[in-house]
């Protein structure tokens, strides 16, 4: 169902926020955009957390080791996989967006997407294996 809001132009059907993530009846490009935006927002949050966490180094060896302990817990490692997924998707889809924005492969954006996602899937599996075995 459509959503309506009253603007100075009168009533109109539009979903300024939902439109980013509402992928019902939508196609590959919208999924890519929605996930790209989600992972982007996630990565910003992670970046802030990362910078804060590094400040524990200033508290000397003890503070850092406490963090290392948490970071090596299985829960945290699972979180690492989510993070790596986010990085891979955002990065590889970003390559696609940058390329077609420069006029390269604009016709074949779908195949480009799937090739990059295949690379991403392989890298994700390899990194997951790395994360849990290292």
């Amino acid at each position: 169902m459509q959503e309506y809001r009253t603007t100075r132009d009168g009533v109109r059907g539009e979903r300024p926020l939902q439109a980013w993530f509402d992928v019902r009846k939508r196609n590959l490009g919208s999924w890519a955009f929605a996930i790209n935006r989600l992972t982007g927002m996630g990565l910003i949050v992670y970046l802030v957390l990362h910078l804060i966490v590094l400040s524990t180094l200033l508290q000397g060896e003890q503070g850092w080791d406490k963090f290392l302990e948490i970071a090596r817990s299985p829960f945290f490692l699972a979180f690492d996989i989510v993070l790596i997924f986010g990085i891979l998707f955002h990065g590889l889809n970003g390559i696609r967006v940058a390329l077609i924005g420069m006029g390269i492969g604009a016709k074949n954006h779908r195949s480009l997407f799937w090739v990059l996602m295949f690379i991403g899937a392989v890298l994700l599996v390899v990194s997951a294996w790395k994360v849990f075995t290292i």
Partner: protein
Amino acid sequence: MAERDVVFKVLRYKQGETVPHYDTFTVKTDENTTALVALQAIRRDDDPSLTLRHSCHHGSCGTCGMRINGEEQLSCVVNVQELGTPTVVVEPLQNAPLVSDLVVDMAPFFDRYTQPEMPYVRQSEFMPEADVPDGIGHYTRYENCLECGLCVSACPVMGSDASYLGPAAMAAAWRVVAEPRGSDPEFALNWADNEHGCWRCHVAYECTEVCPSDVNPAEAIMSLRGELTKRKFRRVFGLGK
């Protein structure tokens, strides 16, 4: 003939109301009934106050665009029985002011679309092996764009930015760059080169997905980006013009 009753759930709205509602109608369909013909039957037999736009009935004029089961389509080429749903939900296009029922105000669309000035008869690229009759410079044909607004309705950016130029207008701008025919390609490029122009696109390709006429606005927007980026590189590195 396979006759079948199909329920239509149609969005209704009249000037002065604040919230639209839905009415349901049952329509007899056969295997040739299009969504548009069904809606015209509703207007004829059930409710003469139902408003909708239509003209050519074969996907050439672009007036009968609407959201059918949540997808932007030209209702005149949507076969009702092939939709396969027992209820067909019909809604007006998004990202445009609602006039009444299935009619939206196309003025904001055309306000963008007329710029840059765009000839709509172009050189025909079909049958290159054919001779052109004496006295005729070259074969011509109409531009693909039907000005139907489906792309604008499907675009996820349109609702976020009231000033966004939108896919149809930028596709037209790219046509001017690709084949100027007396219009000014520099103007077209500059026109699209801003925050509300080709740089705003998020590459969801929905415009291209819903386009009923192979215009491929997404590629056009990316081509504008590409051309502008190329020029930027040339300017920075002092290559060529």
